[in-house]
């Protein structure tokens, strides 16, 4: 069999194009190895001649974790198969088993299916797809490698993020015939998002473009141009042919114009020593070890930095300082330890410290806050619900909290960001998070351990999202500042005008201005009652104004959606108007869902608690869903709107309402009468 024939046969197999081919994989690979002068990495001369020298050499190896991005069509499986085979990680019995399975499960009509090398699960094989991350292992004399092999189909985002989270390096495959595709951009974005610093773009199938230097350079510059928008600090390009082995292990005789490393050489030598953060000492306490009263050890994995015996440390959140007495290990005490060693510390002083606390240096502390911004990768079929309580696992802490708002969603194909109500499976967005307790964190860019967290659904226990904390702190100005008010109305400088006083207004209108917030689920009857009260007051010669949350959304709040933060903002605007109305003597009836107790109390503070009344319009969710006057429940069901308060999103029932109206039991007129009674009772109207 000539080399060209082997290449041709394998190419056909890879493309899955030809049925009926039945080539023994053993024979095939043996043939390839004859032609391509394989460097059997494990078959070092030393194994046979001096095993002890070999072991000594191999006990000093480094570990490199990398992810491969691309699809079978890009030759990814062929490349991985080759790396495994070349480093002798496939044994004859495994090959024989693959060969027999190719006949039943393969997509190549009985011939060897290279995808089976990297496929693992039966159900997936029957569907002909891979649905997850598979980890592969091989090693050479210099390094041990862990490959996170992720598929290139629709589940790519979730799986790639998983594989990328622990990777030092990414191998991005590009088919030389097709160049930079949408999927290349998508893969590169996720690589950059997950903080992988080293990227090697392998332009594969160079044999099919005549080993053209021009084509290679064209692809490199196209990639560089688009990668400028990404954070990829260490970028390399290698032209290869995985099938025939060009520039994989040995330099290609077909591409003498290429002077750089082969892929294997690059993987063996790329410098990753400076990737770890050795500057900021962070030690999340994982476990407290107390075998007896005389020993109290704090166990954990050093997230970043270096620690020496005798160093001054500080325990967060207590901010108590002490010194490192011992760094205890089974193999004896250490003078110093560095990330990512798993160690046990004892301290000079009795300091209160338990799982979830963090030991740092007094002069270099992480941010401590319960509010931050993060990029989220949504990993669950259940969409994100802003405002819902989730569990956040960050270092050794698990804390409840919620996603306050989704600032924007990123389209992984175009990298454009745009507003969205929520995140669906495999979507990525920037969110503002609020937790019930502070955590100790750094930006993910600076620290891949203290900047990362996962989100767990409290009912299903499923991991629904992965988060990376962004450098900027939660934008306080956008969140809390709008609620703050400059005191008093703008005063006129012209003293000749006598201002209308509050007393004069009260006398004229026959009422003391106040704001009634009618809060309740969508469909509970808020607006109907508000309009009814307005009518009754108008008929009695009083002056009231209805501000309806939905009406505001048509104009003043047209820019707002239905996230928790947007609902809060809508109530803020309504409260500001109500306040102005009150200051001008009018009674204001706010008809809004206002699901959040905190936001309601902010509104009360803004308007003045003494003239702010809360009326809870109460009806069961079932009844509200039946009424559904605005069709919102249906839309939420269809996913056109985020989950509604009470139906998936939280609704805090007011604990101290001035009045509760039960619209299931009482008629509209009865409800209106109760509101008027309240106003009279509080002496707001006569």
């Amino acid at each position, binding site marked *: 069999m000539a080399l060209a024939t082997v290449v041709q046969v394998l190419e056909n197999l890879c493309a899955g194009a030809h049925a009926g081919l039945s080539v023994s994989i053993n024979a095939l690979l043996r043939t390839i190895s004859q032609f391509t002068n394989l460097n059997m990495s494990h078959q070092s001369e030393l194994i046979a001649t001096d095993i002890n020298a070999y072991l000594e050499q191999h006990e000093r190896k480094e570990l490199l974790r990398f992810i491969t991005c691309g699809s079978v069509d890009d030759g990814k499986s062929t490349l991985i198969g080759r790396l495994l085979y070349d480093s002798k990680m496939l*044994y004859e019995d495994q090959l024989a088993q693959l060969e027999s399975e190719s006949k039943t499960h393969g997509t190549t009509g009985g011939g060897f299916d290279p995808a089976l090398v990297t496929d693992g699960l039966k159900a997936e094989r029957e569907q002909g797809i891979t649905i997850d991350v598979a980890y592969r292992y091989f090693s050479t004399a210099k390094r041990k490698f862990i490959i996170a092999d992720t598929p290139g189909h629709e589940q790519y985002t979730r799986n790639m993020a998983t594989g990328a989270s622990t990777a030092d390096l990414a191998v991005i495959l590009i088919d030389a015939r097709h160049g930079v595709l949408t999927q290349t951009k998508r893969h590169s974005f996720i690589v950059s998002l997950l903080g992988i610093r080293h990227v090697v773009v392998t332009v594969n199938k160079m044999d099919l473009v005549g080993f053209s230097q021009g084509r290679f350079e064209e692809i490199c510059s196209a990639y560089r141009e688009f990668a400028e928008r990404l954070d990829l600090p260490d970028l390399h390009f290698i032209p290869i042919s995985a099938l025939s082995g060009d520039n994989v292990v040995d330099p290609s005789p077909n591409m003498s114009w290429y002077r750089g490393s082969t892929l294997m050489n690059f993987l063996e030598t790329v410098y990753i020593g400076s990737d770890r953060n050795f500057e900021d000492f962070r030690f999340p306490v994982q476990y407290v070890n107390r075998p007896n009263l005389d020993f109290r050890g704090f166990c954990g994995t050093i997230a970043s930095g270096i620690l020496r015996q005798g160093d001054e440390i500080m325990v967060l959140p207590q901010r108590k300082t002490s010194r490192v007495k011992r760094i205890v290990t089974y193999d004896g005490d250490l003078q110093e330890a560095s990330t*990512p060693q798993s160690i046990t510390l004892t301290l000079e002083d009795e300091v209160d410290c338990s799982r979830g606390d963090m030991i740092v240096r007094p002069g270099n502390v992480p941010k401590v806050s319960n509010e931050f911004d993060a990029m989220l990768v949504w990993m669950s079929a259940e969409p994100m619900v802003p405002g819902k309580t989730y569990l956040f696992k960050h270092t050794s802490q698990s804390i409840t909290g919620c996603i306050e708002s989704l600032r924007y969603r990123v389209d992984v194909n175009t990298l454009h960001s745009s507003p969205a109500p929520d995140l669906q499976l495999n979507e990525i967005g920037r969110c503002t998070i609020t937790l019930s307790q502070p955590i100790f964190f750094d930006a993910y860019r600076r620290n891949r351990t203290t900047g990362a967290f996962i989100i767990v659904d409290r009912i299903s226990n499923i991991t629904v999202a992965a988060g990376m904390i962004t450098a900027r702190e939660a934008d306080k100005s956008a969140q809390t500042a709008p609620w703050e008010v400059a005191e008093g109305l703008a005063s006129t400088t012209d003293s000749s005008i006598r201002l209308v006083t509050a007393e004069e207004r009260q006398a004229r209108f026959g009422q003391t201005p106040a704001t009634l917030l009618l809060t309740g689920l969508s469909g509970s009857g808020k607006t109907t009652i508000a309009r009814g009260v307005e009518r009754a007051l108008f008929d009695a010669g009083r002056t009231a104004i209805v501000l309806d949350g939905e009406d505001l959304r048509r104009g003043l709040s047209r820019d707002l959606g239905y996230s928790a933060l947007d609902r809060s903002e809508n109530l803020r605007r309504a409260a500001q108007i109500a306040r102005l109305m009150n200051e001008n003597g009018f009674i204001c009836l706010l008809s809004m869902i206002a699901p959040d107790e905190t936001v309601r109390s902010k509104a009360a503070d803004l308007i003045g608690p003494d003239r702010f009344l809360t009326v809870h319009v109460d009806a069961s969710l079932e009844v509200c869903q039946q009424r559904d006057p605005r069709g919102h429940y249906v839309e939420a069901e269809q996913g056109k709107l985020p989950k509604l308060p009470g139906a998936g999103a939280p609704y805090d029932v007011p604990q101290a309402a001035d009045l509760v109206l039960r619209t299931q039991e009482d008629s509209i007129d009865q409800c209106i009468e109760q509101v008027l009674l309240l106003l009279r009772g509080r002496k707001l109207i006569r």
Partner: protein
Amino acid sequence: MPAYSLTHLKLLEAESIHIIREVAAEFSKPVMLYSIGKDSSVMTHLALKAFYPDKPPFPFLHVDTTWKFREMIEFRESYARKELGLDLLVNINEEGLKLGIDPAENSEKHTDVMKTDSLKQALNKYGFDAAFGGARRDEEKSRAKERVFSFRDKFHRWDPKTQRPELWNLYNTKINPGESIRVFPLSNWTELDVWQYIHLEKIPIVPLYFAKDRQVVQRDGALIMKDDDRLVLREGEQLETRRVRFRTLGCYPLTGAVESEATTLPEIIQEMLLAKTSERQGRVIDRDSAGAGMEEKKKQGYF
């Protein structure tokens, strides 16, 4: 290697210790499966390191099928129980024992009853909510996608579709009552790593791993050792003395020996590196029911 850079074995060790401590911190009743093999030896060693100077804060469990090599049981008693002083539980499926299944005749049923059922029995009996296993991802294809924390429903079943994504070293340990997690601290270790680590750390292992003259019979292409009188020779079979060792340890009628001259660890490693077949090849179990044998077993609750 540059300063502060750790060797691959040190990194693997640190990762495994992190995993073991995380389980001890987050679960109310963990247990470490102890199979007496080399992977168990490494996992136990890592557990000792994780909690030093204390003992591991959980018991160890050996699922005894009653068909293990005698030398394995001796090692379990003298090393794990006596020398290390581990809190060691042994479970034998007494009900299953009454069925008198001969593994040589019905390996699949033997594994189901004496191994899988027995394990589930023990987990239920003690109410363990997390169980460490020594499986590695490089052992077998369906293991390559296995999580470090592998979720099992209340029937101990594994569903490849409901496994949780696993990012960084943030393991989701949340389960509902009755459910459990299998944890594999050696997920990222390869056979070579395990041997190198045993060599480097001088971890004791069962002598069966070393070559010695042993009484074996050739059966279905494998060399089966006659460890006791329960192994009945079939027609045409005859015992012969060969210099053999075992690459994996299990039930002796199901574990094939390999001819070998390796009597030291370096020699074992040397042999492994020059070998042309994978380590599980000596095991009959993977080839049951064609194709995804191990995967089916895992769904039913096998490790």
